[in-house]
């Protein structure tokens, strides 16, 4: 993602976003200045809904954690166990997003990808064109309440 620094005006290939005081910013590779990063309206709506999702899924013990991943910018929001570092999640997000999108292009009509490793499952849901919600579960599928509320085919609470 190409962005221009608000301070020095230099072009930046943005691959990482910081959230400070709730605002998305990128750090200029030339001068180090933190410039605001502007998500499109759809992405902003998803980011807001994601916060509600993270809060609600705390009440589901079968959900171990989740994170929001941007196809171009990497890890955006992290609610995974601390044993997993941001670099781990970035790697995981890249691989899972790639797998999902390849599945979509080759198979068509993919609405969920599930990767089962040992006794854990990573469920991948795509939001809009660029965002992925990745959810770590103990079970092979998402709890029905969560699936129906946040990921129905269409619905008011849906992403």
């Amino acid at each position, binding site marked *: 993602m190409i962005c221009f620094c608000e301070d020095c005006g230099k072009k930046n290939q943005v691959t990482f976003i910081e959230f400070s005081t709730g605002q998305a910013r990128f750090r200029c590779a030339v001068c180090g200045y933190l410039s605001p990063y502007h998500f499109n309206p759809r992405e902003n709506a998803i980011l807001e809904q994601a916060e509600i999702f993270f809060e609600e899924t705390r009440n589901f013990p079968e959900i171990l954690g989740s994170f929001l991943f941007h196809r171009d910018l990497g890890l955006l929001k992290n609610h995974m166990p601390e044993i997993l570092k941001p670099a781990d999640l970035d790697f995981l997000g890249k691989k899972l997003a790639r797998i999902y999108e390849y599945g979509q292009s080759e198979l068509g*009509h993919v609405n*969920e990808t599930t990767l*089962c*490793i040992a006794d854990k499952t990573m469920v991948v849901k795509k939001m809009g064109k660029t965002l992925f919600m990745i959810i770590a579960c103990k079970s092979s599928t998402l709890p029905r309440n969560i699936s129906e509320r946040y990921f129905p085919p269409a619905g008011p609470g849906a992403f």
Partner: protein
Amino acid sequence: MPNIEPFASLLKTPGVDQYILVDRDGKIFSQAMAEPRKMAGFVFFCGMNAQAIGKFRYLAFSRENQGHFFIFPVGKYYLGVIKQKDISHAVLVDNIFQFLKDNVNRQ
């Protein structure tokens, strides 16, 4: 290399609609699947990327109104399976694991 012959009977396993077995170069060893060459590349690519994350048990693609697609690692191979519509995800996975246990892991 696993014995390929048992895989011909994979279609008799409840829940299996189509299947393809590929090695880690994407070469087809056994298949009963539409567009096998395309699917071989797909299974190989996704299997390799899943393997890069860790030793996975299976990878599943849920599709609207179509048979879900599963990928299982089988030794140095990847098995792609399209699930029949009238069977659950969990039952299909259990049936595949049982098939592999009975026909492959025993060797």
